[in-house]
């Protein structure tokens, strides 16, 4: 569960980086993928490397992104997160700069909400586990007696 929050934080960082690069360098998306894949801060998002590799082989960016997200989503992300990621990839590069920046802001808000929800779940679980453990222990004790 902690891993889920870390991944979501990395995704938010990735979108912030994308936003900055789109705003200041107007980089094409394939170059963007290449640069993101080399970023050490984003090493826990392995789909970026796969996407960059597919782009290098000449695949169309939306296809490369979709493919790499779907390959890894079952292992790393929840269904909702992978849907958001897929949508973000499809929107990337499809409009002018202001459209791209708005899109980044929207997905940042969505992923941020996901992360907060994940943290809430963690906290809830943290409160739930000690009483559960205590009850379990008591049950085991009664059973042994």
């Amino acid at each position, binding site marked *: 569960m902690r891993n889920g929050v870390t991944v979501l934080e990395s995704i938010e960082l990735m979108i912030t980086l994308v936003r900055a690069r*789109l705003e200041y360098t107007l980089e094409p998306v394939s170059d963007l993928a290449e640069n993101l894949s080399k970023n050490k801060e984003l090493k826990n998002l392995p789909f970026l490397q796969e996407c960059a590799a597919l782009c290098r082989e000449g695949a169309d960016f939306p296809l490369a992104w979709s493919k790499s997200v779907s390959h890894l989503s079952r292992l790393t992300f929840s269904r909702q997160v992978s849907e958001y990621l897929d949508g973000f990839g499809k929107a990337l590069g499809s*409009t002018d700069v202001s459209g791209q920046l708005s899109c980044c802001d929207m997905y940042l808000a969505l992923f941020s909400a996901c992360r907060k929800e994940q943290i809430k779940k963690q906290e809830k679980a943290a409160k739930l586990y000690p009483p559960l453990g205590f009850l379990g222990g008591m049950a085991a004790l009664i059973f042994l007696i």
Partner: protein
Amino acid sequence: MKNGQFETAAGVTGDRIKNLLCALPDSIKSQIREIRLRCNKPLVLTCAGVPQFLYSPARLSPVFSSNAVTVSKKELDEIFLRLCSFSVHSHSRSLTEGCITLDGGHRAGVFGTAVCENGKIVAVRDVACINIRVSHEIFGAADEIYRSVFSNSLPSVIVAGPPASGKTTLLRDLARQLSGKSRGRFIRTVLCDERNELAAVRNSVAFNDVGENCDVLTGYPKAEGILLAVRSLSPQVIICDEVGTDEEIAAMEAGFNSGVSFIVSIHASTRRELLSKPQMHRLLSSGIFEKAVLLSDENRPCEIKDIFEAEDLLCEICGTGYDSGGVRTFGQICGSNRAQRRYGA
């Protein structure tokens, strides 16, 4: 034409159309100048100056029938995104100017519904037609002009011609011949390649051969590029495609005063059209240019139709031709720097 050059241009059309185009015989592919794609309409290729329709299995015909290959809206949208390398934001400026340059120096005209703000196009939506102009790098295209004009000197020259007459191809080959090993002159050349169609630079590497001693300024607005080049690269000659604004002419004047020669191109089909163009008047009046070269037409790309002395053209424009009894102080009348210098006017 370079191997694979047509395939690079066809590559953006998507698998279905690309496979048909690439299956055409090489002899036909080398003659294709344009690929015209329109929403829900048949694909038209301009082959040897004639519009031809594409049929499956791969064949061309100038006769239209209902089974000609058509382009769907979805395909056109995909082609548009592919032209932008799926990065519309990187091509906003090119789109408002109506032309995107592809890898390999091919140019795609993209048109749809314009979004305007204060009378200026700020975006294009609902793309309805795309015209891909296939770039042709022809080694030796500038042999004739080199022999006639540049063999012993380095004058400033205007290259004029109708659309698809090979102006860009000729400028590219001229850059290669002036700055490259083929002639051994290694003239310091700067290519002001605002739309990246001359050198076709990708990841800092020029796809087209523009010579060993040539610096390429990609994406710089021509006026700024010229001034920067004059300031920092000390060129002997600057080559630009399609010039004519006041800023560009002012920049060229600054360069000319620093001893730089210019080779530029301009659209004009005939001598009459050449003379009637206001930007031609401005270019000639600047006094920078010594000669104007008029190219033939799209059926004979890069072939020289005529070479004119700039001063003769200027006299004709000003109505002070040598034969008409006009006084040879046209420098004063037309404000020609070169004429003023020559005649002390």
